[in-house]
C-alpha cells in the first residue's frame, strides 16, 4: 500500500522532472555563451593551465574548493566526534579475519605503486585529467588496502591530523598571500610558466597538491576511524 503510494508520487515527480529536462526546448534556448568561454580562454592565456577543470576548481572557483576541503575536514572531525566514546581506548578492529597471504603480499607489492600513482595524479592535476581529489582518493585506497590486509597496520592519528591541518592551513595561507600580494583572496601571485609544463599555472598545482594531501589524510583517517569502530 505504502509502496504503491510512493510509486505514484514518484511517478508524478518523475513526470515533472521529465517535462523539465526532456523537453526539446530545454536545449534550444540555452545560453551557450556563459562563463564557460571565458574560462576556456583565460585558462590558456592567463593561468597557463592545461586542464581547464583544474583551473576552475582551484582558481576561478577556488573558494568552493576551500569550502569543499572544509567539508571533508568537518566530515572527518564529525566522524571522530560522533563515534567518540567516553572510555578512550582504541577499539578492536571490526574485521577480524586475517587476510590470505596472497592478499597481504599483493598489498605490500601494490601499496607503493598506488601511492606513487596517487602522487602522480595530484601533482599533474593541472595538466591531465586528475588532481588533488582524485589523487588523494587513490592514496587513501592504498591505505585502505593495507588496513584490510594487515590487522596490525596502524597509522599514527597525530601524524594524520598534523598533515591534514598543515595542508589546510597552507591552503588558506596561500589564499591570504594572494590577498596580500594581488589584492584578492586566492589570487595568483606566482609566475605562471608556459602551458603544459609541470611548473606552470602559478599557485594552482601547489594548492592542488595541498588538497591532495588533505584528501588523502582525511580519507585515510575516515577509514581508520570506521574500521576501529566496534558496531
Amino acid at each position: 500500500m505504502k509502496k504503491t503510494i510512493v510509486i505514484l508520487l514518484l511517478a508524478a515527480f518523475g513526470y515533472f522532472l521529465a517535462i523539465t529536462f526532456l523537453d526539446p526546448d530545454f536545449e534550444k534556448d540555452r545560453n551557450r555563451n556563459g562563463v564557460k568561454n571565458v574560462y576556456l580562454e583565460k585558462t590558456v592565456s592567463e593561468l597557463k593551465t592545461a586542464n581547464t577543470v583544474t583551473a576552475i576548481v582551484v582558481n576561478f572557483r577556488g573558494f568552493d574548493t576551500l569550502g569543499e576541503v572544509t567539508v571533508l575536514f568537518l566530515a572527518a572531525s564529525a566522524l571522530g566526534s560522533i563515534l567518540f566514546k567516553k572510555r578512550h581506548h582504541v577499539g578492536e578492529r571490526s574485521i577480524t579475519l586475517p587476510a590470505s597471504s596472497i592478499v597481504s603480499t599483493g598489498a605490500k607489492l601494490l601499496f607503493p605503486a598506488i601511492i606513487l600513482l596517487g602522487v602522480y595524479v595530484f601533482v599533474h592535476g593541472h595538466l591531465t585529467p586528475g588532481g588533488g581529489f582524485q589523487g588523494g582518493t587513490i592514496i587513501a585506497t592504498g591505505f585502505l588496502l593495507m588496513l584490510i590486509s594487515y590487522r596490525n597496520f596502524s597509522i599514527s592519528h597525530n601524524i594524520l591530523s598534523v598533515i591534514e591541518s598543515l595542508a589546510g592551513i597552507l591552503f588558506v595561507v596561500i589564499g591570504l598571500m594572494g590577498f596580500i600580494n594581488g589584492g584578492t583572496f586566492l589570487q595568483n601571485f606566482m609566475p605562471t610558466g608556459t602551458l603544459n609544463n609541470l611548473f606552470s599555472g602559478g599557485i594552482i598545482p601547489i594548492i592542488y597538491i595541498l588538497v591532495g594531501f588533505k584528501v588523502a589524510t582525511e580519507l585515510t583517517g575516515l577509514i581508520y576511524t570506521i574500521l576501529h569502530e566496534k558496531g
Partner: protein
Amino acid sequence: MNIENIEIIRIGVYATSILLILIGLYAVLTKKSLIKIIIGLSIIDGGIHLLLIGIGYIKNGTAPIFSPGFENASAQMVDPVPQALVLTAIVIGFGVTAVALALIIRLYRHHNTLKIDEIKNLKW
C-alpha cells in the same frame, strides 16, 4: 552521427539520471534499513551528478584539456564548469555519507536495530 542520434544520447543521459533520482527516492521512502536509505541518498546524488555532467555535453565535444598544439580547440570542448561543480558536489556528498554512516553506527549502538520505524524516540 546525425543530430537525432545526439539528441538520443543526451536525452538518454537525462532520462537515466532522472531514473536514478527516482530509484534513490524510492529507496529513501520505502526501505526500512538505515543503510539502504543512505544508499538511496547516494543514488540520488549519483543521478544528480550525472545530470550535472549531462548539461555540459556538446556535440562531438572533447575534454576541456589543452594539449600541446591544440591551444585553440576551445570551441570543441565540452563545458568545463559542470565538471568542476560535480567534483565539488561528489566530495560533499561523500562527506555527508561518511557522517551518515557514523550516525548509523551510533544509532545501532543505541537502539540495537537498523529499522527506521523503530527509531522514533523523538516525536511530536
